[in-house]
């Protein structure tokens, strides 16, 4: 039986893992390759590496890092952060990335999704969407790490992206992110039930029960979290044992 996936996310700055709390107080959390390997050994199903470096040297450091990760990690991994061209993706895949994640660049240039899917296959194109529920009760797409609002509804953009060739959707609810109050079940469920591709839920996972809810109620295919794993609030083996006890198929 196909299992639900647990995906730790590592934020990378200048080649190091960082732990940020509300974008303040960013602390060094060590070598991303070592941390990734540790999660893999603990039973993580995939890893996401998100590069938040903002320098011009970024492209080179990222491809070097991806190459190191690919040498040492024996599970699939996705790389994201500032990817905006077929050439960017080509370099990352050549260095051993399994998937890449795109966000703002794809929204501004939807053709990019089509071009990437055509050249490399949909299986490696993860579309990340940052979304926020507004006062009107609708979920809207936000860009630039959540700083820029758009008038596009999340569901409309997700549908269009899948038509263009996105192979998975990584959905982050800005309302829930960082709250540890649980994932956004309503929008996750809407996307999971509407789209023909897997949906990775992100933002708000704080307890093991939250993971159960996002898999059973919201029908997510995978759940992503960062700080609860980094701060050892939830250990992956414990989470998997709990989910198994709840009759949820996990590896």
């Amino acid at each position, binding site marked *: *039986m*196909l*299992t*639900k*996936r647990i995906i730790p996310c590592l934020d990378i700055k200048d080649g190091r893992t960082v732990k940020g709390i509300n974008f303040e107080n960013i602390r060094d959390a060590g070598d991303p390759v070592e941390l990734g390997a540790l999660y*893999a050994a603990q039973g993580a*199903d995939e890893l996401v590496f998100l590069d938040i470096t903002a320098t011009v040297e970024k492209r080179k450091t990222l491809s070097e890092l991806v190459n190191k990760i*690919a*040498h*040492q990690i*024996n*599970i*699939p991994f996705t790389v994201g952060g500032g990817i905006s061209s077929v050439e960017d993706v080509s370099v990352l*895949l*050549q*260095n*051993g990335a*399994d998937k890449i994640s795109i966000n703002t660049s794809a929204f501004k240039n939807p053709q990019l999704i089509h071009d990437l899917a055509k050249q*490399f*296959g*949909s*299986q*490696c194109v993860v579309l990340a969407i940052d979304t926020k529920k507004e006062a009107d009760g609708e979920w809207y797409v936000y860009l630039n790490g959540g700083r820029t609002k758009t008038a596009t509804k999340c569901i409309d953009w997700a549908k269009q992206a899948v038509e263009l060739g996105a*192979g*998975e959707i990584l959905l982050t609810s800005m309302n829930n992110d960082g709250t540890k109050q649980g994932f956004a079940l309503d929008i996750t469920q809407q996307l*999971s*039930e509407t*789209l*023909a*591709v*897997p949906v990775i839920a992100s933002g708000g996972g704080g307890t093991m029960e939250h993971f159960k809810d996002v898999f059973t109620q919201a*029908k997510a*295919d*995978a759940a992503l979290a960062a700080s609860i794993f980094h701060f050892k609030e939830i250990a992956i083996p414990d989470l998997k044992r709990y989910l198994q006890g709840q009759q949820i198929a996990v*590896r």
Partner: protein
Amino acid sequence: MSLVIIKYNAGNIQSVLYALERIGMQAIVTDNVQQIQSANKVIFPGVGEASTAMAYLKERGLDAVIKNLQQPVLGICLGMQLMCTHSEENDTDCLGIFEERVKKFIDNSSGNGNKVPQIGWNNIYNLKTGLFKDIPENAYCYFVHGYYAALGQHTIAATDYIQPYSSALQKDNFYGVQFHPEKSATVGEQIIKNFIEL
């Protein structure tokens, strides 16, 4: 012991190379016919689209080379599908090593959450041959695919997704796995070791 990974226009070759390095094996990535033919073991990887990959192999005469190899050959994912007779992916005639045919996953029952492609970890069972030595029944492997090989006489592992299908095939010296051993954690590493030791 020489190990060759066939170089062609279908992804994930680096991943296979790195996985081999992790278990202490060096491999040569090449499309040189003599190097392929003289290797002790040949790996035929692949992520991509069937008709484009077949056209590329035919242009270079690699289709005939692969079919006539005498040493153990391991096809991975698209590599395994290309070793079958025919793929529904753009109605492609493949190498015809395995009689099994490759079909598109179609989920007729709505609302049960079977997305296509299948992406993630699934069990392999009814394991046969030395390729699965020391691998427990129902071990988990990582899959990414929208097309599948039906069950048949060459099935040496099965997996359930929408229906049971062949997650591994074997005929004579040819082996194929639908999952990605190079991405399937320690289970995958053991399967690669087993292939090397065949």
